[in-house]
């Protein structure tokens, strides 16, 4: 479904993603693991097109020089230079790091915005889906998203991404800053979303909490791929084990 080959991303002369290749097959849940500033967010943002957008913005005003090179195919189409909106239309949807929501909009408005590119009937159906996945959201639907707790905002952010009807859902540290109970809630949701036919690529610092749901994982350090493999293969690598599994 998604094929990334020899991806390089530079911010000025600093290399954030270094010659990285990865593949996500239809129906899989794939993890990307790495510590702070390993390049996870840069990778996710580059797949979603946000880095590309930032590059153009900086270019126009003569700001920071951002360089992206390599190959990126989604369902056979080259998307490396595509606009974010084009990628969303194709089904690549990113749920951003720290689960940002539209703070001055109500929960329901946030979900509607998620379905911005979809038909009205589809939006309604997707909002229903989000409420079924996270029942507390329905009770909160009239509330301003900025007033919600971190965990509730996370549900809104995921619901919003789902309203965009993703084929490939990209989640950047979905467990960041959540209580253990809320973490398992999100892991449960990930499993359910996947069961409903959505392919998932998710980034985390620690692999342990998502280990039960992922099919394969990639470990990156300083933008470079260290190892990849099934969950078990990663667990068997002693270095990886101590650094990313906390065991």
């Amino acid at each position, binding site marked *: 479904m998604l094929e990334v080959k020899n991806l390089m991303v530079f911010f000025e002369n600093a290399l954030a993603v270094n010659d990285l290749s990865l593949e996500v097959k239809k129906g899989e849940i794939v993890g990307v693991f790495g510590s702070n500033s390993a390049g996870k967010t840069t990778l996710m943002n580059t797949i979603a097109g946000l880095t590309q957008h930032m590059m153009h913005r900086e270019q126009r005003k003569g700001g920071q020089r951002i360089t992206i090179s390599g190959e990126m195919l989604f369902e056979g189409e080259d998307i490396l230079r595509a606009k974010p*909106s084009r990628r969303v239309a194709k089904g690549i949807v990113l749920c951003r790091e720290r689960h940002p929501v539209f703070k001055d909009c109500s929960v329901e408005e946030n979900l509607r*915005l998620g379905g911005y590119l979809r038909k009205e009937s589809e939006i309604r159906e997707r909002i229903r889906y989000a409420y079924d996945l996270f029942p507390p959201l329905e009770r909160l639907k009239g509330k301003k998203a900025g007033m919600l707790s971190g965990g509730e905002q996370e549900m809104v952010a995921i619901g*919003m991404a789902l309203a965009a009807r993703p084929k490939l859902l990209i989640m950047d540290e979905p467990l960041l800053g959540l209580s253990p109970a809320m973490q398992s809630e999100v892991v449960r949701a990930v499993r359910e979303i996947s069961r409903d036919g959505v392919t998932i690529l998710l980034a985390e610092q620690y692999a342990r909490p998502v280990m039960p749901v992922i099919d394969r994982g990639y470990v990156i350090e300083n933008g470079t791929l260290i190892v990849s493999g099934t969950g078990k293969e990663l667990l068997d690598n002693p270095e990886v084990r101590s650094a990313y599994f906390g065991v």
Partner: protein
Amino acid sequence: MELVNVLVFGLVNSAVLALTAMGFSLTFGLSGVANFAHGGLYLLAGYTSWILANRLNLPFAVSAVLAVILAALLGALIYRLVLMPVRGIVLSEVIATFAVGVAILELFRWMGFVTYEFNLRPFVKGSVEIAGVAVDYQRILIIGIGLVLAAGLWYFTRRTRIGLALRGMAQDEYTALSVGIESDWAAALSLALGAGLAAVAALSILPLGIISINIGYDVLLIALAVTVLGGLESTTGLVAGAFILGYAMTFTSTYLGPQWMEAVYMAAIVLVLAVKPSGLFGKSKELEERV
């Protein structure tokens, strides 16, 4: 008697100010761009509608609608040609749009629009007495138009997909991008909407007097004074700013003389910027966050 006068005309003047500043405030609220071509667009709509109605003999309503459309298109074009390359550099945005505004105004001066023959027809003629004060229908209509536009904008930004998308883009650009909203499209539309509102304001307010180039510069100052006073981008702020300034100006002109009116809004800008830069009704962080 004089007090009743002040109360009634203060209300009308406040509505005029709110309508004058509405487009500027909307564009700023939705895209973060302070469109200093606001006064230029305002006058462009006034002169265009005059030319269409008086030189090309188009019906008044048609000339008005065309003027609004032209202003809106020009607003979008200003974004595409002038603002897009400097997006995010606030000083450049201000200088670039101000230059466009000056260019529009001076173009009309150069074309000879400097005599006293240019005035727009009011939508309705006649007047009515309110508490013993004669108020012409056009002034009452201005209040009505202000209310209708405010309600319309409220509906547009809460209930329609496009309006919601513009609000989303204003709150968090990268999250908006990640659900497929395009930022250049949103900004161009915000500029077009603000320019269209400037045109509607011009067509409603200009019939109260004659059209002259300097009005363009005054309109920009008024928009700045009202939005700075009320707090940039908030609708309550816009209305409150317009009312404070409207009544302050009416008081000064009645009791001190009309020549002091300009001093009032200049003083308002300076005072607010010195004492509470986010505006009387703005949240303190708004300025830094937006700009």
